[in-house]
C-alpha cells in the first residue's frame, strides 16, 4: 500500500460511494463527491513522490503504476481542473436528475486519466484508457438532445481508436513478449520494418481520436457541446490531453528511431495544421456558443499536435505549455458559457445578448481567457504561441507557420463573436433579471483566469515542470537555453521578456485610466438603447444587436475555399460516415443486451487467440 | 391613337355596361371612365388580366366638397398600347369607404395608406400600420378641403412677428413692433 494505491482507491471508492449516496440525500452525495476530489488531489500532490511504484495483481498479469515527472505534468492538469470543475459542477448540476450517475462517471474519468499517466505497462494503460472513454461516453449521452447519434459517433471513433491501440499492443507483445512500455521503447529499434511502421501508426490513430486530429475529429464538436459544461471543461481541457500524452510517447520513443522520421513528422504536423485551420473556419460560422468553443478546442489541439509532431525541444516545450494552458483557458471559457446557460437557459448566440452588466465576473474571466486564446501578450497564451512559431520558423517549416498564423489570426474572429454576442450588444428586457452566477461557479473561473495572467509574466513556474517532464523523455535540460523565469528564447538567441511586457502594459494602462477617469463625473452612463441612430429611439421590444450572418463578408471572401473544403470534403466525408454509421447502427443499436453480446463475442475471440497472445 | 382608345372603350363598355361617364377627347393617350365603386375591383382586374394594363400608376383623390363627394381615381397604364386609363369612382364624403385592392397590385397598399391618412378614406380589409407619414395627428385629415391649414398653423406653431401672412417680408420687418419673448430667448432670436 502506498500513495498510488490510496489515491486511486479513494477515487474509485468515492465514485461508488457517490453513486449510492445519491439514494440517501443530495447534500451527502455532493459532500462525498467534492471531498473525494479534494482529498485525492491533496494527497496526490503532498504525498506523491515520483519513484513510488505500485503493483496490482490481476491473475497472472501484474499491472505496474508509477509516476514520472512527465505524468506529473499531466496529473496537474487532471487533478487541478478536476477539483475546479467539480466545484463548479455542484451549483451547475443542481436540480438535474440522475446526478449520482453523473458524479460517479466524473470521478471515474479522473480515475481513468490518472491511471493513464501513471501506467507503466500497456495493459493498465489500455484498461484505464477504456475506463476514461466509457465514463466520458456515459456523460456525453447523459442529457441533451440527439444523444443517440452523438453517442454513437463518439463511441464509434473511440472504438476505432481503442482497437487500433489494442492491435498495436498485441503486435508489440507478440514481438517482444512484454507489456511494459519501457520494454517496447528499448526494443523498438530491433523490430522488423513493417512492425516499426504499423505500431506507431496504430497508436497514433488511437491517440489521434482522443486529440481530435483532422480526419478523426468528427465526434469532437458534438460530444464537447453535448456534455454538461462542467464536464466539458474537463473533457476538452484534460481528457483530450491524454491523446497528446500518448502522441508524445509515440513520437519521442518510436518515430524518432525510424529512418524516415521527418516524413512522419511533416505529415502529422500538417494534419495538425489542417485541423487548426479548418476547425477555426468552422468555429467562425457557428451560432451556438458551445459548438463554437468545441470547434475552437479542435483547432487549439491542432496547434499542439503540430508542435508535438515537429518534436524539436522548443516545439515540445511550446506544445506542452499550450497543452496545460489550453486546459486552463478553454476550461474557463466552457465554464463561462455554462454560467450563461445556467442563468439564461440557452447558449444560442443569436438570442443571448448584453449580459456584461448582469454577469461582470463571468465576463472578466471570459475576457482574460479569450485574450489568452487569441495569444495576445501579456496573458500567457502568447508565450506558448510565440514558442510554437519560433520553433516552426527555426526548424524550417515556413508554410506551416503561415497556416498556423492564419488560424491564430482568424481565431480573433470567433473570440470576438463569442464575447460580443453573449456579453456585449444591446441589452434585452428578457434578460433583465439575470444575476451573476453563484459564487461556487465564479470562483473556479476566476482562479483559472488568475493562472492565465500569472503564467503570462512568470511562465518559468510552469516551464520547470515541463523541463522535468522532458528530461524524463530524454530531452536535454532546457532551463536557461529556451526559457528563464520570465523570458523566453528561440533557437537564434532572440528573446522576449514577458515580465517587462506586463509592467509596460500596466503602466500605460494606469496612465490612460487616469486620463480617462479625470473629471469622472462629466461622463454619464447611458443605456444601450440610447445610441445614435439618425435620431430614432429603439422601442422597448426592438433589439438592434448585430447577430445574424455575423461574419458574412469573411464567409463571402473565403466562399470558394468553403465550397471546396466543406461542401465536397466535409459533407462527403460526413455522409460517407453517415452511411457507415447506418451499417454500424445494426451493431451499436442502443440495446444494452446487444452490447453485452458484442463484448462477450470480443472476449471469446480474444480467448481463442489467447494462446498466441499470452503464452508465446 | 384615337382608334386604339375607341377600341379599348368599346371592350370596356361591353364588359362593364355600368360605366356611367366617359371622356375620350383628352389629348394624347388618356382615357377616362367613371364607374360605381362596387365595380372598381372588377374593372381593375379586367384591365390588368384581360387587357394588359399591367402597371398601376397612381391612386389619387379629389375632394368635391360642394357635392359632398370624394372622387377616387385609379390610373393604370398599358405598356403595350401606350394608353393610360383613368378609372374614376365617387364616394360619399360623409362615409368614405372603399374596397381594398392591394391584392391586384401590391403597391396599391402604399397609396391606400396615404389616402387613408390624408383624406380619411377607409379601405376595407387594408392591412397596414396605422400611421404613414404624419405622427400623432389629432385633427381632421389635412388634405380635405375643409381643413384650414393656415388657421391650424397659427394655432399650433409659434410665429415670427411680421410673418403672419404672405406679404413681402421686408415690408413687415420695416414695421416690426416688439416681441413678447423671455429675455434669454430674445438673445437667440433675431
Amino acid at each position, binding site marked *: 500500500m502506498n500513495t498510488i494505491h490510496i489515491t486511486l482507491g479513494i477515487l474509485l471508492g468515492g465514485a461508488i460511494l457517490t453513486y449510492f449516496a445519491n439514494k440517501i440525500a443530495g447534500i451527502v452525495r455532493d459532500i462525498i463527491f467534492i471531498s473525494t476530489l479534494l482529498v485525492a488531489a491533496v494527497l496526490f500532490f503532498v504525498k506523491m513522490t515520483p519513484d513510488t511504484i505500485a503493483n496490482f495483481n490481476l491473475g497472472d498479469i501484474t499491472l505496474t503504476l508509477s509516476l514520472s515527472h512527465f505524468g506529473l505534468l499531466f496529473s496537474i492538469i487532471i487533478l487541478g481542473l478536476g477539483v475546479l470543475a467539480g466545484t463548479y459542477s455542484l451549483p451547475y448540476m443542481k436540480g438535474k436528475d440522475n446526478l449520482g450517475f453523473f458524479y460517479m462517471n466524473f470521478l471515474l474519468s479522473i480515475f481513468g486519466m490518472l491511471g493513464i499517466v501513471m501506467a507503466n505497462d500497456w495493459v493498465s494503460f489500455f484498461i484505464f484508457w477504456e475506463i476514461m472513454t466509457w465514463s466520458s461516453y456515459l456523460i456525453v449521452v447523459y442529457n441533451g438532445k440527439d444523444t443517440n447519434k452523438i453517442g454513437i459517433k463518439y463511441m464509434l471513433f473511440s472504438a476505432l481508436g481503442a482497437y487500433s491501440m489494442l492491435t498495436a499492443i498485441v503486435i508489440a507483445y507478440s514481438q517482444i513478449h512484454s507489456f511494459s512500455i519501457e520494454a517496447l521503447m528499448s526494443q523498438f529499434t530491433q523490430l522488423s520494418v513493417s512492425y516499426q511502421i504499423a505500431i506507431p501508426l496504430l497508436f497514433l490513430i488511437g491517440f489521434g481520436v482522443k486529440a481530435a486530429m483532422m480526419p478523426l475529429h468528427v465526434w469532437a464538436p458534438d460530444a464537447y457541446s453535448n456534455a454538461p459544461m462542467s464536464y466539458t471543461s474537463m473533457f476538452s481541457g484534460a481528457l483530450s490531453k491524454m491523446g497528446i500524452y500518448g502522441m508524445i510517447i509515440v513520437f519521442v520513443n518510436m518515430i524518432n528511431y525510424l529512418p524516415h522520421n521527418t516524413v512522419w513528422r511533416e505529415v502529422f504536423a500538417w494534419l495538425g495544421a489542417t485541423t487548426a485551420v479548418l476547425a477555426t473556419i468552422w468555429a467562425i460560422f457557428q451560432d451556438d456558443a458551445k459548438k463554437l468553443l468545441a470547434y475552437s478546442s479542435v483547432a487549439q489541439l491542432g496547434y499542439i499536435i503540430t508542435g508535438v509532431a515537429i518534436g524539436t525541444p522548443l516545439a515540445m516545450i511550446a506544445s506542452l505549455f499550450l497543452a496545460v494552458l489550453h486546459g486552463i483557458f478553454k476550461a474557463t471559457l466552457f465554464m463561462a458559457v455554462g454560467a450563461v446557460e445556467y442563468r439564461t437557459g440557452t447558449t444560442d448566440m443569436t438570442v443571448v445578448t448584453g449580459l456584461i452588466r448582469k454577469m461582470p465576473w463571468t465576463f472578466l474571466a471570459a475576457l482574460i481567457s479569450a485574450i489568452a486564446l487569441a495569444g495576445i501578450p501579456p496573458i500567457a497564451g502568447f508565450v506558448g504561441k510565440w514558442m510554437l512559431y519560433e520553433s516552426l520558423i527555426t526548424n524550417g517549416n515556413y508554410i506551416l507557420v503561415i497556416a498556423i498564423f492564419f488560424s491564430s489570426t482568424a481565431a480573433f474572429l470567433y473570440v470576438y463573436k463569442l464575447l460580443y454576442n453573449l456579453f456585449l450588444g444591446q441589452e434585452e428586457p428578457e434578460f433583465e433579471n439575470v444575476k451573476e452566477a453563484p459564487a461556487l461557479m465564479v470562483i473556479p473561473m476566476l482562479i483559472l483566469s488568475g493562472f492565465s495572467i500569472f503564467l503570462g509574466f512568470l511562465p518559468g513556474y510552469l516551464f520547470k515542470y515541463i523541463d522535468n517532464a522532458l528530461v524524463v523523455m530524454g530531452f536535454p535540460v532546457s532551463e536557461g537555453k529556451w526559457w528563464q523565469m520570465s523570458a523566453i528564447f528561440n533557437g537564434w538567441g532572440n528573446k522576449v521578456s514577458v515580465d517587462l511586457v506586463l509592467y509596460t502594459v500596466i503602466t500605460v494602462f494606469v496612465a490612460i485610466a487616469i486620463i480617462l477617469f479625470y473629471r469622472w463625473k462629466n461622463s*454619464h452612463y*447611458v443605456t444601450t*438603447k*440610447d445610441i*445614435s441612430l*439618425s*435620431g*430614432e*429611439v429603439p422601442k422597448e421590444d426592438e433589439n438592434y444587436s448585430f447577430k445574424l450572418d455575423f461574419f458574412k463578408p469573411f464567409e463571402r471572401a473565403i466562399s470558394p475555399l468553403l465550397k471546396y473544403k466543406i461542401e465536397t470534403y466535409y459533407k462527403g466525408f460526413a455522409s460517407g460516415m453517415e452511411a457507415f454509421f447506418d451499417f454500424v447502427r445494426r451493431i451499436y443499436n442502443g440495446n444494452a443486451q446487444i452490447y453485452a453480446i458484442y463484448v462477450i463475442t470480443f472476449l471469446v475471440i480474444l480467448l481463442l487467440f489467447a494462446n498466441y497472445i499470452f503464452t508465446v | 391613337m384615337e382608334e386604339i382608345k375607341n377600341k379599348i372603350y368599346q371592350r370596356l363598355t361591353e364588359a362593364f355596361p355600368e360605366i356611367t361617364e366617359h371622356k375620350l377627347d383628352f389629348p394624347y393617350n388618356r382615357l377616362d371612365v367613371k364607374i360605381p365603386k362596387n365595380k372598381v375591383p372588377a374593372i381593375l382586374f379586367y384591365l390588368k388580366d384581360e387587357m394588359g394594363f399591367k402597371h398601376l400608376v397612381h391612386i389619387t383623390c379629389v375632394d368635391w366638397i360642394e357635392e359632398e363627394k370624394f372622387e377616387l381615381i385609379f390610373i393604370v397604364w398599358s405598356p403595350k398600347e401606350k394608353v393610360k386609363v383613368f378609372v374614376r369612382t365617387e364616394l360619399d364624403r360623409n362615409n368614405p369607404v372603399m374596397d381594398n385592392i392591394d391584392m391586384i397590385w401590391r403597391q396599391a397598399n402604399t397609396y391606400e395608406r396615404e389616402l387613408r391618412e390624408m383624406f380619411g378614406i377607409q379601405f376595407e380589409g387594408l392591412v397596414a400600420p396605422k400611421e404613414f*407619414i*404624419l*405622427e*400623432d395627428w*389629432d*385633427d381632421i385629415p*389635412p388634405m380635405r378641403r375643409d*381643413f384650414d*391649414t*393656415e388657421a*391650424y*398653423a397659427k394655432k*399650433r*406653431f*409659434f*410665429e*415670427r412677428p*411680421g*410673418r403672419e401672412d*404672405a406679404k413681402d*417680408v421686408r415690408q413687415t420687418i420695416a414695421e416690426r413692433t416688439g416681441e413678447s419673448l*423671455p429675455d*434669454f*430667448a430674445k*438673445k*437667440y*432670436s*433675431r
Partner: protein
Amino acid sequence: MVNDKNSQKIVDIIQNFARKHSLFVLAYGTGCGAIEIPPTMTSRYDAERFGIRGAATPRQADVLLITGYLTTKTLKRVIRVYEQMQDPKYVIGFGSCTINGGMYWDSYNTIKVLDKYLPVDIYINGCMPRPEAVIEGFIKLQKKIAEGRADGAKQYKENFEWYRANQKKVLGPTTPHIQEYNW
C-alpha cells in the same frame, strides 16, 4: 490652480481657440438646404480650411446644421440628435424656413420659428443661402465662440422646462416619450 479665476480664464481662451478652429458638423440634412453643404465642403468653397469638417454621428459632432424647413416629424429626431450631442455644441439655423417659416409659413406640419425649440446660435438668411453665406455664418459662429458667447447649450440646460414645453406643444400630447436628457 485650475480653480483660480484668472488661470481658468486662460484655459477658457485656449479651449475656445481650439473649439473655434475645429468645428465638426453633423451631416444631418433636414431639408432642401442639405444640397448646399457638398459645394461648401468640397473643392470650390473648401470649408475645411477653417477647420470645418463633417462628423458622422452626433456623439462626435459640435455643430448641428438645420438645413431648411423642419417638419414636426423631423423636429422630433432633430431634438433627439441635439440632445445626444456633447457639450459644448452649437446650432446653426439655415435658410428662411428656420427663421420664420419661409415659404412654408402656413403649412400644417412645418415649424416656423426654430429658436423656440432649440437654442440657435447663428441664423443664416436666404432661400437657400449660397455657400459664401454659409461660410460667413460659420465665421460668425467662430467669432462668437472665441468671445465665449456661443453658450446655447447652457441656455438649453438652464431653461430646459421652457424648451420642453414648447416641444411638447408642437409634437402633441401623445408624443412617445423622448428619452430623458442625460446631462
